[in-house]
């Protein structure tokens, strides 16, 4: 759409003296008129948000009215920095993620962002609408946190640090091993933030995690409204003091949260996709706390921790006080070549047969779908009910459930099951651990699938490889270091 700049105001208007919003150099922001009877529904919808006009079920006149009285902000959807477009919602600036079209809204050839297209198209003439009026106040129940569990010693130490970071509005990395019980570590920090009338968001890259966390947090904070946001969720417009969202959904927020907790920082797509990193920064207020949670920080972050450039705390041991299973490396030759001849390395077959005989369930990771599907019929000759699962498998959920119900003896999988899923008593093997897809963090996560339950704290982890990689060695080293630290801090019983 086009706007006319006049007397330090913007007016939506067609015609030659108006411009698409991104061509207006600075956008005037009128002062708040405190006598203006603003619409509380608009306030509820827009507080801490950046939405498109199409998202707002209010007429343009009403929105313009709020703008003229200082209650609404218009921002450019796309900015030009040194003549290159940047999407203001998702931060995209890669040329191949933009396209242009003859736009009927502004009557010009309009550039648009393809990266965040699924959240409504942002083009050069699209204004991002935000709220500039008074913020909403929460009603607090008498008791905020209703959780009577007991934190482990390691959890307690981390929990204290989280509370501190929330209070001081600083950044903190919580580096907790797989199975340490990360969620409980957050409770006290969230409680402290809510008690101070702060708005909290937990963001994670995966919808599964949002769905899993929501009931747990609702139970822990029964008197608090919890918004659960993922693609297609019903809470899209719900204003809540506690929000659990996929990192994608953060794109709709702007300067909204006093505390942002980013879960699984290392997981795809957060580190991969700059835009989500950008979204997290946009969603937090200027003065706010940022808590990063991960079991496997990337190399850069690990280095920053070691050199004292990043505030962090570790939980080096699982809540059940047993050490993490350390992976064994086993050379298996050119397994891909063998697979082409419909064979698997003898030691892999031996490993599988052993598990089948002892009736111990196991996960077998493969680097690629095609290779995994080649291996499936070979392994099925030993047990016909072996299954394989990958990201696009329509029966993914059913197969995982069957594994939980112990009706599958062995599940072949790609990296999709590397994190998030817990089977109580399993062994784990990787076939082709040398593949690039198995990064240090992926391997630590995979190893972290074993020995999760307190009844079965041990599990065998084997990396079958055709040449050791740095990632494999680093993953093993990380696990050993964590175990040592756990022993040193008295968090592991020997």
């Amino acid at each position: 759409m086009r706007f006319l700049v006049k007397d330090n105001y913007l007016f939506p208007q067609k015609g030659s003296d108006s411009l698409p919003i991104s061509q207006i150099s600075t956008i005037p922001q009128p002062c708040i008129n405190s006598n203006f009877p603003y619409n509380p529904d608009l306030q509820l919808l827009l507080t801490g948000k950046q939405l498109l006009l199409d998202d707002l079920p209010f007429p343009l006149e009403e929105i313009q009215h709020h703008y003229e009285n200082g209650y609404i902000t218009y921002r450019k959807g796309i900015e030009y920095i040194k003549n290159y477009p940047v999407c203001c919602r998702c931060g995209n600036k890669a040329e191949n993620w933009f396209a242009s079209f003859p736009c009927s809204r502004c009557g010009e050839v309009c550039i648009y962002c393809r990266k965040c297209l699924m959240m409504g198209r942002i083009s050069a003439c699209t204004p991002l609408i935000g709220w500039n009026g008074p913020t909403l106040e929460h009603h607090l129940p008498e008791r905020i946190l209703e959780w009577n569990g007991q934190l482990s010693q390691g959890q307690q130490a981390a929990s204290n640090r989280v509370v501190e970071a929330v209070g001081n509005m600083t950044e903190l990395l919580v580096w907790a091993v797989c199975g340490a019980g990360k969620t409980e570590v957050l409770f006290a920090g969230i409680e402290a933030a809510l008690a101070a009338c702060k708005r909290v968001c937990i963001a994670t890259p995966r919808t599964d995690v949002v769905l899993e966390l929501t009931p747990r947090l609702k139970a822990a904070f029964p008197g608090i409204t919890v918004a659960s946001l993922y693609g297609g969720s019903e809470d899209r417009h719900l204003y809540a003091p506690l929000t659990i969202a996929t990192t994608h959904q953060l794109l709709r927020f702007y300067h909204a949260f006093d505390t942002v907790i980013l879960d699984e920082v290392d997981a795809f797509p957060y580190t991969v996709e700059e835009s989500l990193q950008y979204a997290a920064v946009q969603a937090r207020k200027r003065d706010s706390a940022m808590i990063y949670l991960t079991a496997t920080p990337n190399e850069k972050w690990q280095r920053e921790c070691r050199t004292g450039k990043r505030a962090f705390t570790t939980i080096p041991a699982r809540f059940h006080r047993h050490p993490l299973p350390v992976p064994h490396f086993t050379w298996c030759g050119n397994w891909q070549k063998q697979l082409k001849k419909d064979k698997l390395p003898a030691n892999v077959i031996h490993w599988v047969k052993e598990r089948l005989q002892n009736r111990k369930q196991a996960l077998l990771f493969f680097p690629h779908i095609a290779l995994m599907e080649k291996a499936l019929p070979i392994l099925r000759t030993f047990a016909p009910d072996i299954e394989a699962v990958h990201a696009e498998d329509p029966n993914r959920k059913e197969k995982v459930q069957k594994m939980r119900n112990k009706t599958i003896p062995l599940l072949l999988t790609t990296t999709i099951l590397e994190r998030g899923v817990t089977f109580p008593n399993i062994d784990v093997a990787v076939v082709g651990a040398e593949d690039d897809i198995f990064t240090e963090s992926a391997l630590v996560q995979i190893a972290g699938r074993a020995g999760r339950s307190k009844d079965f704290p041990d599990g065998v982890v084997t990396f079958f490889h055709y040449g050791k990689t740095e990632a494999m060695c680093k993953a093993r080293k990380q696990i050993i270091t964590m175990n040592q630290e756990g022993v040193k801090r008295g968090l592991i019983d020997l």
Partner: protein
Amino acid sequence: MILFLQPHCLICHGVIQPPISWNSIFSEEKELHICPTCEGKFEKLEGEKCRICSRLFQFLEERFRHEDLCHDCVRWEKNLEWKGYLDSNTSVFLYNDFFKEVMATYKFRGDYVLARIFAESIKDLLRRLNPDLLVPIPLSNERLYERGFNQAEALVIESGFVPSNLITRIHSEKQSKKSRTERIHIPQVFQIGDYADIRGKEILLVDDIYTTGSTLRHAAKLLKESGAKRVQSLTLAR
């Protein structure tokens, strides 16, 4: 620095590995818009089809086929109010789940650039059909503003042709929310701009999908009544 910008697939965003063959070395390179994997998910309409609407007979129960016509077209042609207006429809792809998904991104999410995927197919067809005028099915002003562009017109433009916007739409509700009977029994939804251009012309209507054929027949009727000699249609999917 990247010296050669690798083409990315417009649909899955992966890098396209251009096939290397003698042909690709010696002939002028075609611009690659999608990767072979995505390309493979489109199904071309091949096999015995209805003479008028291009519906494939292989997915149609035998009792709905009447010689070289499908049951729907027989019904249209029996009706004196509609008989003979739409001479024929040509479609390129089968309306499968993948097409549906791509079309949703194109049309409803407004990913204009996806029109380029279909440019080659449309060019080929137009060479064969060779009409005098290309008339995209118009959107109402309200819908046009909402979407930002007309998806049918974009197909014509991105194939390198010039559309003739001869008809306009009187605003009505979304087609996709109506049943077949509702669609057929609506009063004329189009009106015509300039009569003089149409007399004696061979017109090709362009739209994204042929569903019941009612939109196209409404437009065809109007054009024929205004003097068009022949009205055919081109739709991406059937």
